[in-house]
């Protein structure tokens, strides 16, 4: 579903990503972990064309992005196929929860407003927000906002969803609400790449864990193996930092 070959990204002289390769199959949940500044978020943003890259190739849902791709039409198609959930939610503050959820289906997919609204109500119920359809983002808690953002992304029926540290801006209780929703999605077979600091999620929900450090993937393995037997020195240091004991 998603295949990355030799992805290189530079900001000026600094090389943020130095040749990343990764494959994510349909229905797989990939967790990306690693120390801050390792290039995790930048990697994710390259996958849906929010960030152009300098070398390598990204194949997403049948589309191929090359270096410095700026074919607006193709980018738009890629972004329809791949949803994105931001650390800071990025809800549209001038629209209600429902308005946030139907804007893209109506404007991009050309759905009738009524049908889009019916779908959106169902989806908001699914993420536990029945009754809050008419609330504006400023009247919702952080956890609620992030769940609206997930519903908003899901309503575009994406083939895969990219999560960029979806719980980092939340307190533990609200983070738990959001992780619960994401766990449900994983059970339903939704393809996901999740950049996360939640070792619990990586360990218990992901099928595959990739450790990023210094712009490289230093170790990739199923969670059972990676957490039980981390083989790379950087991984071991990171897991120690994160307070994860080898079991």
């Amino acid at each position: 579903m998603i295949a990355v070959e030799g992805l290189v990204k530079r900001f000026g002289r600094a090389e943020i990503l130095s040749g990343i390769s990764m494959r994510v199959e349909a229905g797989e949940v990939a967790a990306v972990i690693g120390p801050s500044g390792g290039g995790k978020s930048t990697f994710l943003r390259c996958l849906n064309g929010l960030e152009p890259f300098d070398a390598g190739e990204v194949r997403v849902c049948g589309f191929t992005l090359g270096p410095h791709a700026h074919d607006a039409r193709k980018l738009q198609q890629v972004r329809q196929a791949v949803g994105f959930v931001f650390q800071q939610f990025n809800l549209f503050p001038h629209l209600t929860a429902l308005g946030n959820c139907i804007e893209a289906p109506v404007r991009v997919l050309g759905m009738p407003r009524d049908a889009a609204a019916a779908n959106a109500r169902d989806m908001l119920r699914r993420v536990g927000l029945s009754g809050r359809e008419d609330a504006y983002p400023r009247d919702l808690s952080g956890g609620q906002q992030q769940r609206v953002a997930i519903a908003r992304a899901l309503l575009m029926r994406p083939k895969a969803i990219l999560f960029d540290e979806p719980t980092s801006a939340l307190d533990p209780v609200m983070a738990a609400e959001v992780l619960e929703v994401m766990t449900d999605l994983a059970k339903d077979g939704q393809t996901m790449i999740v950049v996360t600091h939640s070792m619990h999620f990586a360990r218990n929900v992901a099928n595959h864990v990739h450790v990023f450090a210094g712009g490289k993937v230093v170790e990739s393995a199923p969670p059972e193996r990676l957490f039980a037997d981390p083989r790379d020195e950087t991984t071991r240091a990171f897991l120690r930092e994160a307070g994860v004991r080898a079991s």
Partner: protein
Amino acid sequence: MLRLLLVTALLAGAAGAEDTWERAVRTGVLRWGADQEGGGPFVFSSEADPDRLIGFEVDLADAIGRYLRVRMEFVQGQWDRLSDMLRADKVDLVLNGYEWTPDRALAMEATAPYYVYALQLLARKGGPVRSWEDLRRGGPHRVGCLTASAAHELMLGLAGEGAPVEAIGYDGNTDSMQETLTGKLDATLQDTPIASFYAPRFPDLEPVGDAVAPGYYVMYAREGDQALVRRLNEALIVLFRSGELERIYRKYGIWNREQQQLATILETGRFFGLQKAALSEAGARGDATAEEVKLAGRQRGWAIVSRYGGQLVRAAGITVALSAISFPLAVLLGLFVALGRLYGPRWARVPLACYVEFLRGTPLMLQLYFVFFLLPELGLNIPAFACAIVGLAINYSAYESEIYRAGLQAVPRGQMEAALSLGMSRFTALRRIVVPQAARIVVPPVVNDFIALFKDTSVCSVVTIIELTKRFSVLSQGTQATIELMCLTGVLYLLMSYPLSLVSRRLEQRLETA
């Protein structure tokens, strides 16, 4: 599109081969330029019917029109800009107390004189200036004159010779008479027709010494329009011989012995373009009806307000029309400039930045002059009202675009990214997500700008539009009831701008809760 415009402009230029007189014959219209702010007895609002323009030059123009069988169309212009208007083909001739001077005769085509004027020094009864000699002693004496007039030149010359005189220029004639009365000026130097016409209005001013420096009022046509000048000269000769000229001048109380000079000049043809043939055309003498136009005493208070209020209200309508048409254009243009600078192609950014800096960095008045006077020279002659709209819209678009740029930049980047990530095009993202959020931020400064533009419309008088401020200025010249008219004008502006402030407050509250 641009090419099409250029071609049209060139064609228009080629059609300009037709000279002004030929065009007048074809269209049956001659446009004559004058400034009603100059006031009586030249061109001014009738006291009996404020909507009607009268004055000896109005009567003269009509008489000429009757002789030439064309309709004489009055065009308002600022006095010291009339020659520019002539050059820009906004008028066909200038007929407004323009003195014959060698400089002007070089730049334009002068007709024979239609009036012999002299300069009369006026001072307050019992004031310090009692003679021309007094002007060379003591002082410094402050003397007011019409800006750029022969009187102004003479006073500047006197000051240049070292006389203790300060020449102060005014845009209207009666301003300096009023100021002399109040003591702000020591004297005023006026053309004799003005001095005698306004004498009843200023009983406390008196002539000092004899009238000096006689000269001629002539009409001016565009350089090269000699056919027109010949026709105008013919008309003058005929009008003089028939006694029509004398009748008109007597009507306004400005006929005097000096005008006999006209006989010598006109009959002997001591000027360019005299057609002897015209002499034979001089027909029967017109009926010398004893009509007379005399100024009523100065009116004050409510009488003035009720008499001229209607005119001010109508002028306020022009002000509203100017702002209501130009501001939406400015808003739209500004929005495109701001979007272009932030999201447009890289090559467009520098030109757009220059556009904004140039328009913000130069005065609105200069830009209006540019549109009004320079474009015609490039072959693009658009009507005054359109000039004003275009000038205001372009000028304000620069300010608007800066407000929108700030507003758009105040919308977090994540909003655009979130919209793009949902598969929206950049355009949809701007239209549905970014611009609506920016709009909330910019409502207060934009309404503020609208109120500012609303008042800036007064600058449009430089391109001959008579809006509220200009009408006030014209009326106060004619009536000297400055205080009453000023209050009324102020109230009208306030009545129009206060509702805007209310609307803005309502809008802000609504957006706040939305």
